[in-house]
């Protein structure tokens, strides 16, 4: 039942609104609202019960194994949640003077320094509010760099065909044309095709490494050389940074600019689809173009550190401002807290144990007869299986397996991505899952395989145990109903 359908006229959470209700008489009639909007009319208890019950219809990390490839659904520490909601942080107005912001600014500054170290880059800005905005900032900096050198001929961004959809969409938002290059059967970029693609029109390349194929791009240095020799820059999409955290740094691989997804690698909650946070890190060449604001720090003679904001006055060539204030501050705090708790030894382990978990699962699944898409390669923090045999011989698709997994109490992996592997699952267990969950998931897959062979309709008709069965997406798009309207 919708919350609108459970109310009574005139009811609201009386304790939560001001008691006074004087009429407003200093605003012209023509500017005032004439009719009441239809908002819910429920008591505080009704509201709490409605939304608590809604929450119980969700899968989440706190309740289920959630191996959604490329999304890094790891445990979100409760301590980070609690500390980020301390009153001093919650109540600070974004435009409060620096004298009343030293606590928050010190956290921002310290996180910038930590991210510089783990990425091997020279400068960091935390202002982009999501991965896609980080990408936008990164490509805008590439553009500003070329234009700063009066090189206006560079009109193209190269992306491998396996790239996330945000990469080409971002390049277009920055005014670039997109050139896709093929990926070889072993999952690496087709270097010969890249060599043919680059030229004086190349602004840069956007790459994810490990790639969305779940393998490490072994020719990364040759790719860097090819693009740099052509005068282009290298963009690192940090979607898969979790795989290599503490093991290899984008700066050392030759990248000029990157974004990180703090909601993936730094364990901040995904919140049902956001907020994220997408800081950017750059090498020396792009330092002048970082988006603002950035936290700066001066050590006074007394040894006391004073923190301040750096805006366009201090960084005149900046690509500018991407949010009203200073990005998703609360997410930045949670990521900082996570980094503080892990420390240098803990950050190392992220890459190690996420990779151990993925390789273990990949081996178990391969031993159980599932086909790995890149069976001769090491898995990274994620791996791909293809169910195209099942689809062909049993008429049971990857989608069917995904829906049936829900009945077994597991969130489905990412399905049908990357697009170049048919009927695929992209599986990312993360380092915070124990061997018990990994084995449980594989056992569920084996059980579903048996069902697919013996009673395929059970799999094709799944799920059976969720609040709804499969939904009619065609009807949703054709008979568009995106808002409740009162009768």
């Amino acid at each position, binding site marked *: 039942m919708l919350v*609108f359908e459970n109310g009574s006229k005139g009811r609201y959470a009386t304790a*939560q609104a001001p008691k006074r209700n004087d009429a407003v008489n200093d605003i012209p009639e023509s500017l005032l609202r004439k009719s009441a909007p239809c908002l819910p009319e429920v008591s505080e208890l009704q*509201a709490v019960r409605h939304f608590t019950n809604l929450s119980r219809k969700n899968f989440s990390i706190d309740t289920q194994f959630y191996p959604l490839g490329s999304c890094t659904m790891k445990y979100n520490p409760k301590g980070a949640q609690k*500390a980020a909601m301390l009153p001093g942080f919650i109540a600070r107005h974004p435009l409060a003077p620096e004298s009343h912001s030293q606590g928050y600014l010190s956290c921002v500054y310290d996180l910038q320094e930590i991210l510089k170290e783990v990425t091997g880059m020279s400068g960091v800005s935390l202002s982009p509010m999501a991965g896609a905005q980080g990408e936008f900032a990164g490509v805008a900096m590439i553009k500003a760099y070329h234009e700063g050198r009066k090189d206006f001929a560079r009109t193209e961004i190269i992306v491998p065909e396996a790239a996330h*959809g945000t990469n080409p969409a971002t390049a277009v938002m920055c005014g670039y044309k997109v050139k896709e290059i093929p990926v070889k059967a072993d999952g690496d970029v087709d270097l010969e095709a890249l060599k043919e693609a680059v030229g004086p029109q190349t602004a840069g390349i956007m790459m994810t490494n490990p790639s969305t194929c779940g393998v490490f791009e072994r020719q990364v240095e040759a790719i860097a050389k090819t693009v740099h020799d052509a005068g282009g820059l290298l963009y690192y999409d940090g979607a898969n940074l979790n795989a290599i955290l503490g093991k290899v740094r984008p700066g050392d691989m030759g990248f000029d600019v990157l974004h990180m997804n703090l909601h993936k690698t730094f364990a901040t909650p995904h919140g049902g*689809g956001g907020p994220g946070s997408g800081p950017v890190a750059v090498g020396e060449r792009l330092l002048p173009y970082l988006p603002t604001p950035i936290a700066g720090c001066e050590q006074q003679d007394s040894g006391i550190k004073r923190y301040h904001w750096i805006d366009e006055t201090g960084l005149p060539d900046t690509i500018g*401002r991407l949010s009203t204030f200073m990005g998703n501050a609360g997410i930045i705090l949670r990521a900082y807290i996570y980094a503080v708790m892990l420390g240098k030894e803990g950050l190392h382990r992220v890459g190690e144990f996420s990779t151990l978990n993925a390789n273990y699962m990949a*081996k178990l699944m391969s031993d159980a007869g599932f086909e790995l898409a890149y069976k001769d390669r090491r898995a990274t923090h994620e791996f791909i299986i293809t169910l195209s045999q099942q689809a062909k011989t049993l008429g049971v698709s990857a989608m069917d397996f995904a829906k049936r997994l829900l009945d077994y109490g597991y969130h489905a992996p990412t399905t049908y991505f990357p697009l170049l592997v048919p009927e695929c699952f992209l599986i990312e267990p993360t380092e915070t899952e124990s061997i018990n969950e990994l084995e449980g998931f594989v056992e569920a897959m084996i059980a579903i395989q048996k069902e697919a062979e013996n009673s395929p309709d059970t799999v094709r008709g799944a799920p059976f145990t969720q609040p*709804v069965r499969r939904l009619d997406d065609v009807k949703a798009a054709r008979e568009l109903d995106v808002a409740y309207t009162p009768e």
Partner: protein
Amino acid sequence: MPFIPHTEQDIQKMLSVIGAQSIDDLFDEIPAHLRAKPLDGVPDGLGEMEMIRLLSDRAQQDEGALCFIGAGAYEHHIPAAVWDVATRGEFLTAYTPYQAEASQGTLQLVYEYQSMMCQLTGLDVSNASLYDGASGLAEAVLMAVRANRKSKSKKILIAGSVHPLYQKVVTDIVGNQGIELDVLPIDSQTLCLDHSALNNFEEQDYAALVIPQPNFMGSLEDVNALTNWGQANGMLVIAVVNPTALALLSPPGEWGDNGADIAVGEGQPLGLPLASGGPYFGFICCKQKLVRQMPGRIIGRTVDLEGKEGFTLTLQAREQHIRRSKATSNICTNQGLAVTAATIYMTLLGYEGLSRVAKASHQNASLLADKLKTLDGVNVRTKGAFFHEFVLEIDSKRDSSVQAVLENMAEQGVLGGFDISPYYSDLKYCFLVCVTEVKSESDLDLFKASLARALEGVA
């Protein structure tokens, strides 16, 4: 190991199944000379106990001042139930509802959110949210350029009374696609748009007109006349609105003869703490005919194969994960958790509660403005109708800078407002003061006393 559950026994078992000697062997496809050295620039890890101590010390440094700054982020009472329920793990630690059957909680909530935003704005369609108000306006501008069939123009006309930081963000984001902004001048006496300047812009082709209500300075624009003027000149009208104010003021869908075409704004006043500027969320609503140009996620109501009501992501063919370089935007996430909080907030308050919040905020602000009229050395610069925020001017004869006055007040524990002098050459001695329902009358008296002392102190 923090947050990693593996025992030594687990590790050995896993390695032997994989057929590797050590965890390091799993990285053997990475060239050896590229492997990272220890991250010496990162401090050693802290336990939760030490971490809480560190963070509490830092949070306390920023605590305690009485805040009268608004300028786009507003302090309202947040019912305890809002974040108690919103931070349940099932909302907090879920992701984008790709598996609709296992995400009905988030999906239904967002559908309810979309419904409430349509009601508040008087428009037909809302998306599931954007990042924040300023970046939301940038998306609205891009949307208008795509959607305006009558105009091929890549130029936008924006009111000079739109928040200056919004103007900056929009310019910085859309400039990369060759879209230009022309600014409509404001009248420094009325603090609203200068209507006599409008005819200077009639000859040019603009894709859209951006109108704020209330405007950055809290003043109310004549949105009906402006909407009619913009549409008569072939522009789509984009409204930038405060959602709390919409409980009191005319909704964009009812502006002028035909209503604004798109409404955007900052969702923060709806149950989100100030929290240094985020996470907030941007809302965007539009007329039905523009729905296919809408950026970001949209949730639709449908039925399952047994005919039972359910909710799902819809119109995904607009989005980057399907359309790639031809998508309406590169946006991927929304601000789901912030929207969860806002939906619970609007549900608790309803229209009755929300309009009381709007009225109490406005009346508190009016009360402070009245009190300050008897204070020597300052003038209330705002003359016409306004909403919960007004401009205060230091008597220019004193020649004390706004910055000095505000710093003096801050030392007294009162954050007195936002200095607007850098943004408007005609308003050199002015700052913006905001009052909401959370302030008591004694807080207002404290403001006045603190300002009086500051004016003495810097005289």
